């Protein structure tokens, strides 16, 4: 292995160019230009089948065309996303862009918080410095972004929070309830099993708020069904590999498992893999899961999942409409005061996706990735 000094930079270059040539460029911002150039950047991924497939398009509905705000010809919105490490987060951006596209004089700047509260806080300052008219944010973390939220409100700028709340003043917080979604899924599971059976729970990353909420929803439903037995709880960390390991061990320990209640589709796939490894495909262990991706809905349709909790990322469009409405000075219909400062627009629960309604939901799910093969087939 003779490696000369000269080779080193060349190799780094090769690596860099390999990276640059990969599938598509990164989603970071659509400059201050026309509204369409944001969506062009997403040409590679067309999760969203069109504006009409947005599940919440009727909430705060708004006609197409220029938005008239006194003293402003063009409107620039700022969208601060948690990070883009997951397709769910990208799908949310798509719904933001879908709404923006309908209003020719509106454009949006997107910033990526890298899953880092400090970075996102700085991003908010950058957006304000850039002169945006309103800010839409999906916070990395509740408490950590409260000061940033206060800085926005101090500038009398509309601040719309999506998915996760912040304990500070805001124009409106728009979110779905993880607790209720998981409760619905669990109720379906209990009904399928006639109120009797042994189940295991694979959680999302221990300590993250959606994982905590989804566990709460399950516990609420189990409290109402004394015939159900929760055998064990394991940390699936939202992904596949840890789920395989815990499920491996549970299959060794428990001769009879009737259902797996998982917080995420990926972990459900992991559990199925473990069932296959253990040669227990014929046990007919049922899978109840959450995420609401298009491939997930397909899996429901094919009978691999019994139900998929429908936690939609397509809420960005409501955020845009709320921000534009606030700029126009319109009230936000349905927003109510709640325990935190500001108002809360609670979204109606989307129906749990089961074999009955899977067909109609497949086109409305997020994610373009391919459906995982059923390991048992």
């Amino acid at each position, binding site marked *: 292995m003779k490696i000369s000094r000269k080779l080193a930079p060349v190799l780094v270059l090769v690596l860099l160019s390999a990276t640059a040539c990969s*599938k598509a460029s990164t989603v970071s911002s659509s400059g201050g230009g026309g509204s369409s150039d944001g969506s062009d950047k997403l040409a590679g991924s067309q999760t969203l089948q069109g504006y009409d497939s947005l599940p919440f398009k009727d909430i705060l509905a708004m006609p197409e065309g220029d938005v008239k705000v006194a003293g402003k010809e063009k409107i620039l919105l700022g969208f601060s996303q948690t990070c883009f490490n997951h397709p769910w987060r990208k799908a949310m951006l798509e719904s933001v862009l879908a709404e923006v596209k309908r209003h020719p004089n509106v454009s949006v700047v997107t910033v990526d918080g890298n899953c880092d509260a400090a970075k996102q806080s700085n991003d908010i300052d950058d957006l304000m410095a850039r002169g945006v008219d309103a800010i839409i944010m999906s916070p990395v973390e509740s408490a950590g972004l409260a000061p940033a939220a206060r800085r926005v409100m101090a500038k009398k700028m509309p601040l719309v929070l999506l998915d996760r709340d912040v304990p500070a003043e805001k124009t409106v917080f728009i979110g779905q309830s993880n607790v209720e979604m998981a409760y619905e899924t669990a109720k379906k599971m209990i009904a399928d099993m006639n109120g009797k059976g042994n189940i295991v729970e694979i959680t999302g990353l221990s300590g993250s708020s959606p994982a905590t909420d989804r566990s709460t929803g399950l516990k609420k439903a189990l409290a109402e069904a004394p015939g159900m037995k929760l055998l064990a709880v394991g940390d699936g960390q939202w992904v596949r*590999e840890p789920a395989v390991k815990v499920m491996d061990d549970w299959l060794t*320990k428990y001769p009879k498992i009737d259902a797996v209640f998982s917080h995420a589709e990926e972990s459900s796939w992991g559990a199925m893999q473990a069932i296959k490894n253990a040669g227990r495909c014929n046990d007919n262990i049922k899978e109840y899961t959450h995420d609401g991706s298009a491939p997930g809905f397909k899996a429901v349709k094919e009978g691999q999942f019994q139900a998929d909790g429908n936690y939609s990322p397509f809420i960005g469009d409501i955020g845009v409409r709320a921000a534009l409405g606030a700029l126009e000075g319109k009230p936000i219909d349905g927003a109510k005061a709640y325990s935190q400062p500001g108002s809360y627009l609670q979204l109606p629960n989307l129906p749990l996706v089961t074999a009955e309604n899977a067909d109609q939901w497949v086109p409305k799910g997020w994610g373009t990735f391919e459906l995982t093969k059923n390991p048992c087939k």
Partner: protein
Amino acid sequence: MNEPAATMLAKPKMQGVRERGPAATATMRKYGAGVALILLIIFSSLQSDRFLQVDNVLNVLRQISIVGVLALGMTFVIITAGIDLSVGSMLSVVVVYTADTVQTRGVFLGVIMALSLGCLLGLVNGLGVAIGRIQPFVMTLGMLAFAKGIALIFTEGQPVAITNDAFLAFGNGRTLGIPNPAIVFLVLLAVCMFVLRGTVFGRSVYAVGANEEAARLSGIPVRRVKCAVYVISGLMVGIAGILYASQLGVGTPVAGDGKELDAIAATVVGGTSLFGGVGTAGGTFVGAAILGVLSNILNLSGVSPYVQYLFRGGLIVAAVLLQRREGRGR
């Protein structure tokens, strides 16, 4: 007249603690991890009657195979007193590129992609450390971030599903009743044991870690050895990537998150000294097995995932305490 004072001052208890002979130290270093593993296995078999079932043992072997393979590569690096923090991120890169290549170009090219990509990333680390003289911690920390970026950009955060049956069959199949990933791990273990113990290169790795200047003055090609250990670590990442993709049927850009710490933990628990010059591949196997058995028995005993972290942390420290007094005499 000295006698009474002499007896008074003689404190047999103290001497044992303060000065243990080098022989005892060496023995503990060599077998401490093994003793810990045996204790853990005895405890586990008392705790759960399912623990020693063949299927469960094979499960544990399969479960530790990915981290175990990474830890074997890590062992080479740590013996040279280096560290490779980038194995987790590199694993993510390898997994997503491999998944994509298997899908679009077939299994053969997918495997080639995994191995060469692993080596290439490892080579960048190696060149940075050996020729750029960047501290391993810093160089591989940089690679950690860089590789993570590559994985995310390539996939745009979307998982890449693998539908190639032959490829999936490998990761989930068995040969002679033993899961294939476990076989790969055990074969690599044997190769690494041989390379470290029985080759000129292995002896050079120990020499560089034990005393770099002495090795250099004795004509050991220190820079080449240092570069090579990172390439080996990268190669192991490539192999682990194949195991991951074919076992789980998916390439996600978060596949390797945190795996570097698991690999370092297995290596250190297995008796490899972070100060360099000391460690064996067999020890690393024992280290990986200790961590794997622990998580297995905790799951079998139905311990909550929150509490499992406490056990894991406690065990890492306890296992290293058993092999005390490392880095003495340097």
